C-alpha cells in the first residue's frame, strides 16, 4: 500500500519545484533532450525535400522560414546550448571533477556533491542558453 502511494510516475518526474535547482536541471536536461530529438527527426524529414527538386525545397522553406519557424528555431538553439553546457557539467561530475571530497555527514546533511560550483554551472547554462537564443533571433530576424 505504502509502495503504491510513493509511486508518482511521470507526475513525480515532472515536478521541478520540490528539490531546488538541481532537480530543475535534471528535468530540463531530459525535456531539452526529448525536444532536440524531435527537432532532429523533423530536420531530417524537412531536408529530404531537397530530393524532390527546387519547387519542393522552396515550398518547404516557405513553411519553415516564417516568424513561427524562427521562434521555434530560437527555442531549439536555447535547448541545444543548455543541453550542451549542462551535459558537460554532468560529464565532469561523473568523472569526479567538481563534486568535492567525501566527508563525514554532519548536520544539516547538505550533500557535498551538490555544491555552489555545480549550482553556478546550472545558472550559467541557463544564462548561456538565453544569450544564444537572443543571438539566434538577431540573426534570423535581422536579415
Amino acid at each position, binding site marked *: 500500500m505504502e509502495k503504491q502511494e510513493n509511486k508518482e*510516475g511521470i507526475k513525480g*518526474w515532472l515536478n521541478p519545484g520540490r528539490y531546488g535547482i538541481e532537480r530543475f536541471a535534471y528535468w530540463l536536461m531530459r525535456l531539452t533532450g526529448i525536444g532536440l530529438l524531435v527537432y532532429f527527426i523533423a530536420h531530417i524529414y524537412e531536408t529530404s525535400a531537397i530530393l524532390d527538386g527546387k519547387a519542393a525545397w522552396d515550398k518547404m522553406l516557405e513553411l519553415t522560414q516564417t516568424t513561427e519557424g524562427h521562434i521555434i528555431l530560437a527555442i531549439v538553439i536555447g535547448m*541545444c546550448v543548455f543541453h550542451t553546457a549542462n551535459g558537460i557539467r554532468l*560529464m565532469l561530475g*561523473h568523472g569526479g571533477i567538481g563534486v568535492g571530497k567525501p566527508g563525514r555527514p554532519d548536520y544539516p546533511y547538505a550533500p557535498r556533491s551538490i555544491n555552489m560550483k555545480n549550482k553556478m554551472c546550472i545558472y550559467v547554462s541557463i544564462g548561456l542558453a538565453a544569450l544564444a537564443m537572443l543571438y539566434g533571433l538577431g540573426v534570423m530576424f535581422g536579415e
Partner: protein
Amino acid sequence: MNKMRESIVMKVHYGTALGAVALVAVHILFRLTQGFSESLQYESVIANYEFLPYALVLELILVLISVHGFNGLRVILLELKQGRGYEKAVTYGCIAAMVAVIAYGSRTIIMTSLGMA
C-alpha cells in the same frame, strides 16, 4: 548475445555528445558564413552537399546525434519504468528507430551529393 555494459554505453553517450558538439558547430558556421537566408537557397544547399568533406560532416553528425539521441531516450524511458520485457522492448525499439533515422538521412545525403536530386 552479450549485453554491452552500461558503463561502456555511457562512454559512447559522452563521446558521441562531444563529437556532435564540435561538428554541429561547423554545420552552423556554414549557415552563418553566407548569411542565414542565402545559405538556405536551393543552389547553395546543393553546392554544400556536393562538397564531399561537408557531406561527410553531415553523415557523421547524423550518426553521432542518432546514437546519442536514441540512447538518451532509452535512458529516460528506463528511468520511468523497469522490467525485463519492458527494458528489452525499449532497447530494441530505440535501436530500430536509430537505424531507420540514419538510413533515411543517409539516403538524402548520398543521393544529393551524387547529383541525384
